[in-house]
């Protein structure tokens, strides 16, 4: 028997090994993110809207939907040959499965962010250099929130025949409390405001993260019971 975190780490490593080998979700998410950036760029009238006003919205719309693509795959790999049954029958806590999946999804979303944030900076000519540490803090905190919500609803939706439709329908309303402070904090940082002005949004983001981490971890065992 393994403790919760050792089992979670094992599951996360397994998920990352599968994703590294297939690259199905990461490639799809990355292509979606880059395409989204390009499309928004060509639809943008730079004389009407300043890049620093548009970029935060572009960034978080892209992350939200690119993340959903990957999150759907999270429990999809378990359903393919009902490997989820082997996980449920194993002598590990149900919470380990959730934490492991969420950790792997966090690495996945962070991977998309690491490519997409500089790409947005390049296309919209944003001054990323000086705000990079603060911006990556926002990105990380938001990724945590998106991932825990997405992992929970991915587990719920994966047992249904309409998983592709159900996941966005369930998850998107819960993404709103994460995406609003993330977009607000990003806007403050990109427009050159003092970090102190972004701090209340960061605190709100962190508070929502804590609420969602606790709530989703506690709710998860009930979502995978038959």
């Amino acid at each position, binding site marked *: *028997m*393994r403790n919760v975190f050792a*089992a979670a780490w*094992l599951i996360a490593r*397994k998920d990352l*090994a*599968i994703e590294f*080998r*297939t690259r199905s979700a990461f490639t799809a998410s990355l292509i979606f993110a880059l395409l989204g950036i390009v499309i928004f760029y060509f639809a943008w009238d730079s004389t009407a809207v300043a890049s620093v006003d548009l970029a935060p919205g572009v960034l978080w719309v892209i992350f939200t939907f690119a993340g959903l693509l990957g999150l759907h795959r999270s429990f999809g*790999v378990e359903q*393919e*040959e*009902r*490997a989820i*049954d*082997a*996980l*449920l*029958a*194993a*002598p*590990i*806590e149900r919470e380990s499965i959730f934490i492991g999946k969420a950790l792997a999804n966090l690495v996945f979303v962070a991977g998309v962010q690491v490519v997409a944030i500089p790409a947005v900076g390049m296309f919209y000519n944003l001054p990323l250099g000086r705000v990079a540490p603060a911006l990556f803090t926002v990105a990380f905190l938001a990724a945590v929130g998106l991932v825990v919500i997405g992992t929970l609803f991915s587990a719920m939706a994966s047992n249904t025949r309409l998983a592709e439709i159900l996941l966005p329908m369930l998850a998107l309303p819960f993404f709103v409390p994460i995406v609003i402070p993330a977009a607000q904090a990003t806007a403050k940082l990109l427009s050159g405001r003092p970090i102190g002005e972004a701090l209340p949004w960061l605190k709100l983001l962190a508070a929502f993260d804590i609420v969602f981490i606790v709530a989703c971890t506690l709710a998860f065992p009930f979502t995978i*019971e*038959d």
Partner: protein
Amino acid sequence: MFGPNGAGKTTLLRLLGGLLKPDDGSVTLAASKLGEHMILRAKIGLVSHRTMLYPALTALENLEFAAKLYGTSDAERAARRALERLRVEQVNVPVRLLSRGMQQRVSIARAVVNSPLLLLADEPYSGLDESGAQALTTVLRELKSDGAALVLVTHQLNEGLEIADNVAVMIDGAFARYQSSTDVSRSEYAAQYRDMVTASA
């Protein structure tokens, strides 16, 4: 355990394996209620209709992962040993590239990698060729001689009667018949079983 499709055999196995919670009553194994003691789950192996494997991972990686989940001390050694017992040679090939029969062997190897004291096997012979079926019978006999209990669901009466100490027929969610396998003649049992299934249809 024999029975027609939809009789409840798989549901019973899922209850015994802790995959389903009973609406009423409880499952007791070794004088302990399943679900209350995590250690009980470490002693159960499960074979299902589906392979419960990750197609992108190799046979060895799948088994190592399972062995580690069960807290096996030398996971790689346990995984290699289980694959050898089921005569799986392509241990470093992704499971999706193996034939269905070979995938089934890997799945059975995964179920025995933790040396279970209770093996729940749902149609383990389906998809196996003769060599695979022989390897499975050998493994089941070894587990039995090591003191493990087996609950085997099968439509193949001969294999079932050959391995089992006790045989049951489940119809409509209840045992319609339960007896020692030594008390039955195979041909008579087969004829009676066919009659029971026909009558229940």
